């Protein structure tokens, strides 16, 4: 749950819903103090919009005009709770104005639309105007976990969104425009699958950590706690 690579600027996925927002705002503050041209981007879902962290983060970023792109991936469900049941006022994007920042909605399943919307959002944030909320509307096709019976949504609703699968749609557009052929799409899929399979095999084949690793990296430096 907490995959990270600080060298690449990935400050980590977070096991606490909304946990990443304050960190992203802190990174933006750091950018402002270090005077670099970086921006801070944080992805979060509809579940996070109800957490105090999200309010505090957007409020502080708004009031201090920090370079944060709040990338809201609205996939309609947080476990079994729909966004209708959790977002008072019906729209997180509309709340953005309340935090002194633009709030723009885009079809999250449309690759091109997201690309152009993101370009605009990034340009805004990088220019020093402040923060920006980009709401990408999408849908969670699988359950929240394996074995999730998904009793909280209808088959019709699910099927309508499956038909709008983003990768399938993007392939269709690229084939129509002659950017890629059907065969090339299949090849890419196979290559990516192979890469993922290899990674899984590598992980499974890797040895367990030594017992001594148990006490490593709790602290930095020599600390006999």
């Amino acid at each position, binding site marked *: 749950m907490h995959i990270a690579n*600080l060298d690449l600027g990935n400050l980590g996925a977070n096991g606490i819903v909304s946990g990443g927002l304050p960190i992203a705002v*802190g990174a933006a503050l750091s950018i402002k103090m270090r005077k670099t041209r970086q921006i801070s981007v944080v992805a979060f879902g509809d579940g996070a919009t109800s957490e105090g962290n999200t309010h505090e983060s957007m409020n*502080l970023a708004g009031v201090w005009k920090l370079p944060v792109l709040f990338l809201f991936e609205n996939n309609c469900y947080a476990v079994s709770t729909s966004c209708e049941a959790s977002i008072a006022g019906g729209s997180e994007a509309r709340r953005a104005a309340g935090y002194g920042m633009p709030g723009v909605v885009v079809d999250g399943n449309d690759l091109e639309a997201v690309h152009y919307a993101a370009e605009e959002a990034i340009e805004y944030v990088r220019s020093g105007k402040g923060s920006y909320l980009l709401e990408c509307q999408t849908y969670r096709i699988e359950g929240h976990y394996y074995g999730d019976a998904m009793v909280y949504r209808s088959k019709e609703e699910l099927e309508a969104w499956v038909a709008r699968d983003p990768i399938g749609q993007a392939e269709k557009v690229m084939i129509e425009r002659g950017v890629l052929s059907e065969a090339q799409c299949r090849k890419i899929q196979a290559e990516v699958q192979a890469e993922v399979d290899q990674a899984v095999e590598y992980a499974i084949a890797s040895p367990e950590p030594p017992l001594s690793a148990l006490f490593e990296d709790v602290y930095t*430096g020599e600390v006999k706690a």
Partner: protein
Amino acid sequence: MSERQLTYREAVAEAMAEEMRRDKTIFLMGEDVGIHGGAFGASKGLYDEFGPERVWSTPISESIIVGAGLGAALTGMRPIVEIMYADFTAMAMDSIVNQAAKVKYMYGGRATVPLTIRAPEGAGRGNAAQHSQSLETWFNFIPGLLIVMPATPYDAKGLLKSAIRSDNTVLVLENKLLYGDKGIVPDEDYVVPIGQGIIRKPGRDVTLVATSRMCNLAASAIEKLSAEGIDVEFIDPRTIKPLDMEMIAASVKKTHRAVVVNEGHRTGGFTSELAARIMDDCFEYLDAPILRVAAEDVPIPYNRMLEFEVIPAEKDILQAVRELMR
């Protein structure tokens, strides 16, 4: 060494100012820490010297004060964040406990969190239940956090410098009733190492371990006990985690008796941990049970008379030591 005296709060401000001069990545963030100088005056002068780019006054948002501190710490800065009253750390618990404390471990060591969290604790001013607590025991329970509790102006400056220079998340739990205390504070760069206790007074008969403001009560009690012929060895651990058990154990092995004093509540408070650790290391050497002097297990009352009944008083320390020496 100069004989200059500063108050505890001046020592805190001086530590921050000196460190911020030395290293441009160090900054202060918290409520009212800027032009106001901090709710307790502990950041007085910093805004004048360093300006709004290094001294950030926030809205009332403890979770993000700490969380943004963490984000800045992960991206090349060395933040000092201030929580106005330790009681309000409750608003920031996820940021402290689930985030800052655990990031390094969860990321396989590939993260460093040089974050300092300062917060004043303590009762005795009629600030009542939600503004008077001593909460070090909460944080002592969480692997990944270091905790210091300076009891003197000298230690306030030295320990805060160590905390700022540490690449770990360090909680600096000050005490609001200590802010006005005066003491010798050298006008130079010095540190008090994290994890190093101090023997405030050597003795033979009983080991007295006291934290933060309880050290003032202990010092006064010890004078009276001396007159009664009881020679107390008084230790101020100064750091809660990592605890200087080497010093404490050596003392108890010598005196065979121990009294531990902490302003937190008795149940699950820091005295519980101290007693358990002394038992771990010194059981064979003890001639008597370890006595704990702690706050009663009730919220701190508003009423002054009741407040002083709840928190440890000098008479409680005297009673405990005399009981051990009977």
